[in-house]
């Protein structure tokens, strides 16, 4: 039972953090960069581990952020200096990084406890068993158990993301809405671009343990897209995105329990289903409005006769 709670709590935080960051990716049309970074951070994690021989959270976060920023920077440079179109630049960089990551895992399979497949889609059901201990020195069984590692990782990241968005809300809004205006007002849009990429990197790596690379993309993009369709302000878009993400977690978890399938995949599928439901409802509304207009028009014609 307690394991279920940890799983749900971790999943909720992952979904919420991804939704918040995802809103800005959607608004700035950088969804593919989010896709790219969530693949590249694999290499960051592997390198961080191989170099420092430690799985400590700050190290992992650091490795992820470095590689994430490198991905964004290399893509941009390839675009400018190599004169390659931007989506191609992103594609070449992240597939290379990801490929190297997979090869390294395969070569050093004994030393890294990352499985290729796990990396892709994680397995959130296992996280309760990988717990954090404090005060026990190096020995795994001493000290005080305070809950799964993955939970604390995403909790920290979630708080960072939340605070960043709250504090810098106006800046982020101006930069997302009208970069040229921001530039003319003297705002450093390059800084904010890489700031966002840093948040994406951290969120991705913290979610890795739980949901794996591909599903991080789903959680980044899908709830935020649903919110995009119905929100009337940036603030409400952020709220809706988090709301959709939590609904996805609830539905997904239940679904996985019923069907005995992967929890993280179910959450992502639920997010998608909610999106298409939203689209369907909006389409019906549109159709109804058009129908009403047609009726009104034909009434008009009738009255004129």
């Amino acid at each position, binding site marked *: 039972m307690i394991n279920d709670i940890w799983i749900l709590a971790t999943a909720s935080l992952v979904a919420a953090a991804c939704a918040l960051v995802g809103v800005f990716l*959607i608004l700035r*049309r*950088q*969804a*593919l960069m*989010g*896709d790219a970074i969530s*693949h590249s951070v694999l290499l960051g994690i592997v390198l961080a581990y191989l170099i420092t021989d430690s799985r400590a959270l700050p190290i992992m976060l650091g490795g992820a952020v470095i590689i994430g920023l490198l991905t964004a920077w290399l893509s941009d440079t390839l675009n400018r*200096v*190599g004169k*390659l*179109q931007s*989506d*191609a630049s*992103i*594609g*070449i960089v992240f*597939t*290379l990084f*990801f*490929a*190297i990551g*997979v*090869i390294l895992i*395969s*070569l050093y399979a004994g030393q890294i406890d990352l499985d*290729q*497949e796990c990396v*892709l*889609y994680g397995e959130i059901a296992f996280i309760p068993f990988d717990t954090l201990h404090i005060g026990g020195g190096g020995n795994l069984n001493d000290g005080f158990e305070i809950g799964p590692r993955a939970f604390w990782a995403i909790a920290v990241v979630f708080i960072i993301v939340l605070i960043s968005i709250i504090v810098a809300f106006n800046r982020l809004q101006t930069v997302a809405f009208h970069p040229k205006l921001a530039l003319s007002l003297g705002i450093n849009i390059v800084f904010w671009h890489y700031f966002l990429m840093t948040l994406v990197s951290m969120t991705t790596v913290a979610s890795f343990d739980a949901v794996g690379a*591909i*599903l991080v*993309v*789903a959680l*980044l*993009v*899908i709830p935020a*897209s649903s919110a*995009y*369709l119905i929100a009337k302000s940036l603030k409400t878009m952020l709220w809706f995105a988090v709301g959709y993400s939590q609904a996805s977690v609830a539905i997904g978890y239940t679904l996985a329990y019923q*069907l*005995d*399938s*992967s929890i993280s*995949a*179910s959450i*992502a*599928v639920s*997010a*998608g289903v909610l*999106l298409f439901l939203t*689209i369907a409802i*909006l*389409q019906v509304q549109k159709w109804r409005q058009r129908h009403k207009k047609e009726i009104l028009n034909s009434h008009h014609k009738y009255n004129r006769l």
Partner: protein
Amino acid sequence: MAGFELFPPPSLWDNLRLFWQFEDMNVLWVLMGSVLLGMSASVIGGFAFLRKRALIGDALAHAALPGVMMAFLLFQTRDPLIIFIGALCSSFIGFFLIDWLPKNTKIKADAALAITLSFFFAIGLMLLSFIQGMEVNNKSGLDKILFGQAAAMTEGDIKLLGYVTVFVLVTVVLFFQKFRLIAFNQAYARTLGIAVNRYELLLALLIVMSVVVGLQLVGVVLMAAVLLTPMAAARYWSNQLAHILIIAALLGALSALISTQISYLAPAMPTGPWMVVSLSVLFILSLLFAPQKGLIKQHLNYKRLRQKVAEENVLRTLYKLHEGHPFSHHHFTQADIQSFRNMPSSCLQNTLKQLCKKGLTECTTQGFTLTPEGIKKATQLTRRHRLWENYLNEQAALSPDQVHQQAERIEHILTDAQEAQLQQELSNSQQDPHGNQIPSSVPSSIQSPVHSKEGGGRN
């Protein structure tokens, strides 16, 4: 394909030898299959690239996963054809979605790709985990589709791969002109009466087929690179689409060769990543070393241009110096030259050395002077400079200072034809705005200035 996996490597060289001897037919088949895949994927990926949909291969590959799982669930078989058709169907649905979303909702193109990619993949994973919980045969190896594993391919798989890739290549060759036109300017193609929608559909079908058929070899996650990277690399080698596509195909084939080789030597490793790594290496090499467009070549061109500019500037300065001493065979020192033109000493030294080597100047212990060859060249340069100054003065209403600055640059690239055109268009082709004589095109010797206005300028 048991034979493939049972070769424990006695030594690296032995293995390489064995590989190339093609003693194992399986190896040969896999090699051929992957080469064909590399070629067809890169060619069809080229068209996606041109349509600014470079990452569509990524989305379509991920979208194929549920189809694979469904086909297995429904028919309980791993028959290549059935799996292929299943994957094709779901990938096609994904393609349709990617198109539909931006057209009918607020959602933009990039988000549509990411949504389709992740949603379909998630469905596929749900089905996979469901299948893995089931008690059925044949279910192992389905997860190999994530990263690709050449060793896991059956003979049927490879045959299908061969048929599909050949079909794709042949179709592209047949319809090349139409595809190219549509990729370049769709609206125009429509006005010509071409059935654009049908060709778009055909193109979509080819892309989807290429992606799906390559999944077993390269894997879902990295298929995007096989479509995208060869084209990106080939662009640096040529400007003509047909040539670019051929080069892309060759690069694809080459990387397939390399990765299959590596996969043979180390069967435990997935094939896909190695193909991507070899493609990326080829890309970087193209980016740097391609003739004309490669970065290194561009840098060398730039260096050469700088040298030419320096040489021509020095020649003109010598001309000017000679003008000041009309009837003597004077030698000028470096300091003399530097008084007229601000150039770092080391640069000036090198330039003078080059000019001497080319026989345009004479380098003696007393100093430097122009040879007859040098005089000819310097006169031509000066003539162009001063004609151009006149032109700017008359036509562009610039002040003499601005005029001089502009002319300093343009003089290096004026052609003979342009020079003649200038002469025609000008009303005054005798003197430049500073009052200096414009030398005629056939100099016998350096003429003396007739009217040198006060502050004749540093030209």
